[in-house]
C-alpha cells in the first residue's frame, strides 16, 4: 500500500482522494483545516459553476453523484451575456444553450459531505491547520505529499512563475452573496442560466443559480475593477445585511435589467457573504521543504486564476483528474521530482488556454471579442459555442483568443 497525504479538503484534494481510494492500493490521508460540521455551518468560501466536462470527471472519481439534477432539483442549462446600452435596456443580451448541464453546489455543502464520505469509505481524515513544519516531518512518513490548500502559509512554499503570471496585483475586487428569492430572467422564465453582465470600465455582475444547505438559491457575484464603484465592499465588511443591500444597490445602478428579479433577495444564512481579492498567479509546482523533501502542489495552489470565468472549480476537477491518472500510471515507482514536474506539465497543458482566456477577460475586450459578443445575439450558433467553451475552454484558442480565426469564423457563420 502506498501512502499518500493530501493537505486540503477542497474540490481538487477530495476529488483526488476519493479517486485514489476507489482505485485501491493506496492509503490516503486528507488533512482538513476544519471539521466537516464547521465547513457545513461556516461562512461561504467560494463561487463556483461546474460545467459538463468537469462534472463528469468528479462523478467518475467519486463513483457517486450526491446532487444529481433529478434528486436535487438543481441544474443550469444556459449561459447568458448582457452588456449595457445607452438606456436602461442592455444593448447586448443573449442566452447560449449548454449541451450538458452545469451545476453550482455550495462548497460548504459539497466538501462537508465529501469529507464524511471519504472517512466512511475508509480514508483517514486529520483535522489540522497544516504548517511547514508538519509537512516537513510528514513527508518522511508518506510516499507522496500533495498540497491542495490554496490559502495559508504553506502556499508560500511554492514560488511564483513570473513568465506565466502576467499580473502581480488583484485585477478585481470580489463580493459574493448567496440568496433566496431571485426569479429567473423574464425573457427565459424556464431556463436556469448563469448570467454574465459585463459593465465596461466598472466590472462584472455574475448571477449563478446554485444549491446550498437550505436548498436551491442564487449567487450574486460582483467583480469590481479596483478603485471603481464596485470596489466599495470594505465599507460593509462584517455586516451581511449591508453587504446584500450594497450588492442590490449596485445592481440597480449598473445592471438595472437584473434588478427587478433580484429585488426581494434574502441571504440564505448568516454566513452567506464573502468579500476579498487576490492576484491571479501561476506557481512552480514543487515545494522544497526545509529537510529537502518535496511536496507537489495541485489546482489553485499552482494555478490560481481570477474567478471571472468561473473556472476555479472546473480547473480543480481537471487537476484532480490529471493527477489521479498520473499517480495510477506511475505504479510503484518513486514519486520523485521528475514525476512531480511531469504531472504538473500534463495539467498545465490542459489549462494553459483556460488561463490565457481568463486573463484576457480581465482586460478591456478587443474589437474582435466585441464582434463575437454582438454576433452571438444574431446567431444562436455563436452564443452556443461561447457557452459551451466554458466546459471545454481549449476551443477558445480556435476563435475567441485569435482575431484572425475569430473573423474567419464569424464570416462563415454570417454567410449562412
Amino acid at each position, binding site marked *: 500500500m502506498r501512502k499518500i497525504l493530501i493537505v486540503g479538503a477542497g474540490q481538487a484534494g477530495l476529488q483526488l482522494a476519493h479517486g485514489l481510494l476507489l482505485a485501491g492500493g493506496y492509503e490516503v490521508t486528507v488533512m482538513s483545516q476544519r*471539521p466537516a460540521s464547521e465547513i457545513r455551518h461556516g461562512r461561504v468560501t467560494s463561487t463556483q459553476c461546474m460545467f459538463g466536462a468537469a462534472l463528469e470527471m468528479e462523478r467518475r472519481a467519486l463513483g457517486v453523484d450526491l446532487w444529481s439534477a433529478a434528486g436535487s432539483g438543481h441544474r443550469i442549462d444556459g449561459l447568458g451575456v448582457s452588456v449595457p446600452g445607452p438606456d436602461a435596456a442592455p444593448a447586448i443580451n443573449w442566452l447560449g444553450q449548454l449541451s450538458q448541464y452545469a451545476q453550482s453546489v455550495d462548497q460548504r455543502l459539497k466538501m462537508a459531505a465529501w469529507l464524511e464520505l471519504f*472517512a466512511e469509505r475508509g480514508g*483517514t481524515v*486529520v483535522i489540522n491547520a497544516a504548517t511547514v513544519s508538519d509537512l516537513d516531518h*510528514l513527508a518522511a512518513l508518506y510516499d507522496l505529499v500533495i498540497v491542495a490548500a490554496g490559502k495559508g502559509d504553506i502556499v508560500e512554499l511554492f514560488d511564483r512563475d513570473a513568465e506565466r503570471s502576467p499580473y502581480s496585483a488583484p485585477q478585481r475586487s470580489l463580493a459574493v452573496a448567496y440568496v433566496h428569492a431571485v426569479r429567473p430572467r423574464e425573457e427565459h422564465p424556464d431556463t436556469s442560466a448563469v448570467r454574465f453582465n459585463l459593465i465596461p470600465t466598472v466590472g462584472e455582475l455574475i448571477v449563478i443559480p446554485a444549491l446550498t444547505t437550505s436548498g436551491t438559491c442564487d449567487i450574486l457575484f460582483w467583480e469590481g475593477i479596483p478603485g471603481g464603484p464596485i470596489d466599495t465592499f470594505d465599507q460593509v465588511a462584517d455586516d451581511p445585511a449591508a453587504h446584500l443591500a450594497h450588492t442590490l444597490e449596485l445592481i440597480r445602478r449598473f445592471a438595472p435589467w437584473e434588478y427587478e428579479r433580484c429585488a426581494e433577495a434574502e441571504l440564505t444564512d448568516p454566513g452567506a457573504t464573502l468579500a476579498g481579492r487576490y492576484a491571479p498567479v501561476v506557481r512552480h509546482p514543487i515545494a522544497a521543504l526545509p529537510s529537502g523533501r518535496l511536496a507537489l502542489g495541485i489546482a489553485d495552489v499552482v494555478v490560481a486564476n481570477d474567478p471571472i470565468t468561473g473556472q476555479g472549480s472546473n480547473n480543480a476537477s481537471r487537476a484532480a483528474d490529471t493527477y489521479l491518472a498520473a499517480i495510477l500510471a506511475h505504479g510503484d515507482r518513486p514519486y520523485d521530482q521528475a514525476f512531480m514536474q511531469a504531472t504538473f506539465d500534463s495539467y498545465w497543458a490542459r489549462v494553459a488556454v483556460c488561463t490565457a482566456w481568463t486573463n484576457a477577460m480581465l482586460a478591456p475586450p478587443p474589437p474582435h471579442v466585441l464582434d463575437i459578443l454582438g454576433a452571438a445575439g444574431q446567431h444562436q450558433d455563436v452564443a452556443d459555442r461561447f457557452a459551451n467553451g466554458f466546459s471545454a475552454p481549449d476551443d477558445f484558442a480556435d476563435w475567441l483568443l485569435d482575431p484572425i480565426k475569430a473573423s474567419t469564423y464569424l464570416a462563415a457563420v454570417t454567410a449562412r
Partner: protein
Amino acid sequence: MTRTYALHAPRRPSRVRPYGITRGRTAADRFLGVERLISTVEFDPQRVLGMLPETAAVYEACRYPRTIAELATGLALPLGVIRVLVGDLAAVGRVRIHPPAADIPDRHLLERVLRGLDNL
C-alpha cells in the same frame, strides 16, 4: 381517485449505510484539540517492532495518558504530526482517544496543557 406523491421524497444514496454515515461524521469531525487525552490500549512491546519510530514513540508515551500538547512537546514533533500519528494508532485500536473534557476541565489538566503549550 387521484394520488399525489411528494416531489422530493427524503432519501439517501443506497450505498451509504446508516452506520457508515455515523462513522464518517465522527471521523470527519474529530478534532484533536491540544487538551485531548490519549492513552495506549494494552501496551505490548512486541507491537513496537513493526512501527515507524515516531509511531512507536507515541504508542510508548501514552502508556500513561498524555495530552496532544504534551506529546508534541515530549517528542519534539509538530502538532499536525502528532494528530496524524494518534489518528493512525486509534484507527487500529492501539490507542484510545478520551472523550473531550466536560465543560469545566479539572485544574490539574489545564495546568498540564498550559505547560505543554509553553514548551512548544
